[in-house]
């Protein structure tokens, strides 16, 4: 597919490499708090909110990425309070939100006229067709995540250790928790057309789960998870470039293999 490499090809490939690094890093890092706070369904709910938003955008002729971000932000606003309700397991209530959103998304898909290539891109992602603004928004969200990790690392550590204890020592635990959920939602929305709404969940869950097997140090877990995310994405890109395979599929397979290897070599077993 990629030969001969023209300048045109080269530019797309370079963009795709950057997108892989940024997407892998972002998803790997937000995955750490999704795993440690034990809210895997937040990842699912977020990706489907963003997906529903993108489809809604296509349907009404609005910018799909902006709509994805908007829906993800609204979902973040809903998820926090829902997760606070003590009488309902958050994973159950989020499951309900997620199924409603998925219904909306597929209803929208059905209503779309003409070819559904663009809509399908939001399901599968297409890392080779990114625009400069896609890339820039990914870069910004990754920088924001890094900045927040550096500034609020001790608060994040406390919240991920135990939310009630974090609150009891006088940390604004709710604000930190909501901030983390909102960042997760934004990252998911912005990775939608890179990795795809259906597959992003695995990229959020697999790298931190692998890192979780390997270290007892939170900083190291963030580092390893980001690294595994980047490796998975670059591998997916390499395969799709060489063999014309769907990128997302190989990303998921790679990240699952990394998890399997981590499990085998885990000192924690």
């Amino acid at each position: 597919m990629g030969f001969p490499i023209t300048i045109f090809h080269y530019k797309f490939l370079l963009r795709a490499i950057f997108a892989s690094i940024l997407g892998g890093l972002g998803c790997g890092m937000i995955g750490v708090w999704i795993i440690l706070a034990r809210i895997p369904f937040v990842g699912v709910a977020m990706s489907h909110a963003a997906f529903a938003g993108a489809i809604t955008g296509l349907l009404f002729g609005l910018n799909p990425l902006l709509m994805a971000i908007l829906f993800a932000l609204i979902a973040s606003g809903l998820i926090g309070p829902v997760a606070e309700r003590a009488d309902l397991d958050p994973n159950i209530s989020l499951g309900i939100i997620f199924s409603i959103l998925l219904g909306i998304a597929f209803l929208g898909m059905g209503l779309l006229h003409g070819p559904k290539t663009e809509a399908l891109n939001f399901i599968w992602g297409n890392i080779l067709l990114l625009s400069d603004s896609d890339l820039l928004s990914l870069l910004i969200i990754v920088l924001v995540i890094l900045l927040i990790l550096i500034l609020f690392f001790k608060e994040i550590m406390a919240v991920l250790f135990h939310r009630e204890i974090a609150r009891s020592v006088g940390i604004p635990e709710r604000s930190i928790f909501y901030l983390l959920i909102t960042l997760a939602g934004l990252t998911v929305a912005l990775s939608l057309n890179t990795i795809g709404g259906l597959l992003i969940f695995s990229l959020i869950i697999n790298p931190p789960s692998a890192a979780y097997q390997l270290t007892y140090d939170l900083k190291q877990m963030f580092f390893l998870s980001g690294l595994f995310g980047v490796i998975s994405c670059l591998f997916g890109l390499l395969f799709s470039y060489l063999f014309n395979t769907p990128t997302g599929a190989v990303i998921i397979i790679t990240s699952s293999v990394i998890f399997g290897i981590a499990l085998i070599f885990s000192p924690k077993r």
Partner: protein
Amino acid sequence: MNASAIIRLKDVSVAYQKDLVLTKINLQIDEGEFVTVLGPNGAGKTTLLTTINGLGRIRGGEVWIFGIRLTPSRAGEIRKEIGYVPQILNLDPRMPIRVRDVVRIGRFGKVGLIHRLSSRDEDIVDEVMALTGIKDFSLRPIGHLSGGELQKVQIARALAQEPRILLLDEPTSNLDLRAQYELLDLIEQIYLERSITIVFVTHILSHIPPSSSRLLLMKRGKITFDGPRGRALQRNRIGDLYGIPDHDLPL
């Protein structure tokens, strides 16, 4: 009403969903007191503690701590001065956080957002770890500790706040005899050396710390007795509290 009380509850009621869990509680605790709250499971002991540090949501009445009315907007500041050791910690053994970092969490609220811990903060962490005897495993993963070790870490974390009030929720209930003994000893030592106001919760009669001279008996959301230890620990009262015949009591 004694205005100088460090903890003051006035007609406080708490409910989850519909059921009242605390019913019109009135309570005053003075600075430096060591109060034990005794009562059966489900009496509302844990809820009483979370009412004092503002983690629970009260339905009615007023809570005053350090002479300040506890409101949601002031709770954060007040909590920095209250060390809280919750009842049960279900920690994943794989949790990627080590013992010393858990103790450091006690300083995080006081230090404030963005700021790093100063060398003075780290000294305080070292000091409370020495006091509680957990220095030897400061780098162990927090999920790998025994019940007794974990309780000591929790107490160290609470002490790292340099709190004026210490709330201990059944710290001795799930420990073997030796660990119970060690922990009660540690709590005594903390009280005698630091003159912190302590509220200690237990459902086990034999775990009342020797220095605790005042007892609250709690049953079904009410304080049924509040007074000196000697008068609290009478057969009829305790039998009544737990709903068992007096003559079966090991008093």
